[in-house]
């Protein structure tokens, strides 16, 4: 799980152009939206594409997004649970 979380942090930084951040600056349990990283709705779309492109996981039900994208850890857990 730790390796996946680390990988995911790198992918998020790259996909969202978070140029000033390093992996260690991102708290695995901090909220991605609002507080924490302060991401917005466009970033949410970018993260959905990231999941599909890099991990082959499609978020079928948009309502699940809130839970999946709560933090880097919840994203990693979702990937692990749904990886084929």
């Amino acid at each position, binding site marked *: 799980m730790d390796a996946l979380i680390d990988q995911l942090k790198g992918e998020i930084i790259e996909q969202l152009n978070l140029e000033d951040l390093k992996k260690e600056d991102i708290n695995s349990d901090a909220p991605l939206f609002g507080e924490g990283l302060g991401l917005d709705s*466009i970033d949410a779309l970018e993260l959905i*594409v990231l999941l*599909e492109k890099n991990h082959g996981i499609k978020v079928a039900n948009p309502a699940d997004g809130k839970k999946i994208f709560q933090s880097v850890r919840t994203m990693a857990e979702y990937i692990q649970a749904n990886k084929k």
Partner: protein
Amino acid sequence: MEGYINGIGIISPQKTFDTPDFLSEVVEHNSKALYSIEPSYKEFLNPNLARRMARIIKMSIAASTICFRDAKVEMPDAIMTGTALGCLEDTEKFLWAIIHDDEQFLTPTSFIQSTHNTVSAQIALQLKCMNYNFTYVHKGFSFESAVLDALMTLAEGEAKNILIGGHDEMTDKYYRVCDRIGYFKQETVPTMELINRKTNGSIGGEGAAFFVLSKDKSETSYAKLRGIKTIYKPENNQEIENKINELLASNGLTAKDIDVVVYGNNGDARFDKTYTHLQDNLLKDSTSTYFKHLCGEYQTAGSFGMWVAAKIIKTQTIPSAILIGDNKSKSIKNVLIYNTFLDVDHSVYLLSQC
């Protein structure tokens, strides 16, 4: 139709954005394509917003911010910009992703930022400006169309302060495409030697230049913009001279009243003949200057030329780096800009001291 240039902000391959200096030192790029010298954007943009923006958007927002500060204007009555290629870097990213990922996994950011009017829109969003907002995309007439719209809007009394701008960016892919169709020289040319190269092609360039064009003169005024004319594919030099004479006559002037001409010579042996003809004939009594060795060739380079002309008038100086031949001018009242893109889109602007 006239307007006062009351503020300027320009980011270009020269040091133009954070210094009052006027080309006393020239940045030698020694390259086939010139890229802009960029500021630190943290002063102009929230990093959270900047992370999504391509270089041309950041350059334009910074240049427009500098322009507003220079003009002491907080909110324009209209925003009119010209760009031939729009936000090319993001367009390339988006198209590349379509091809590479077989039309899957398209991300929203590069799509949103890839439209031609993104720059005007982002400037308006930053200012919360709900006024008239227009982007002209007419190849070598893009910036000139914005200027013309602004002059007409001022003449109609529909605005007092208008932000006008020209912006285009150079990318590696665009350079390669243009190089293949013969836009650029095959050899690297030192900046100050460009005008003397008698080979085909020019050097690539880019920039973002913004101006506050106002109805009234102010303490910050650089010059009065008195008119602009565009000529599409002129048949011969006589047609060009006639258009210049028309512009001058409509302002009560003749060619003898022009103290300085700012030419768009770009070192391309195929196209510089128009400038040479004017220098040797209609405008032979004026001091000749040029600018594209400093900013490179691009469709909205006329905006760099307008900066040069406005600075010449305001400072009453002609830097040696832009001079062709001798300086014949003692005082500088009237300046003409003559520019062409690929000998297709020709434009002439008239600026005067105010």
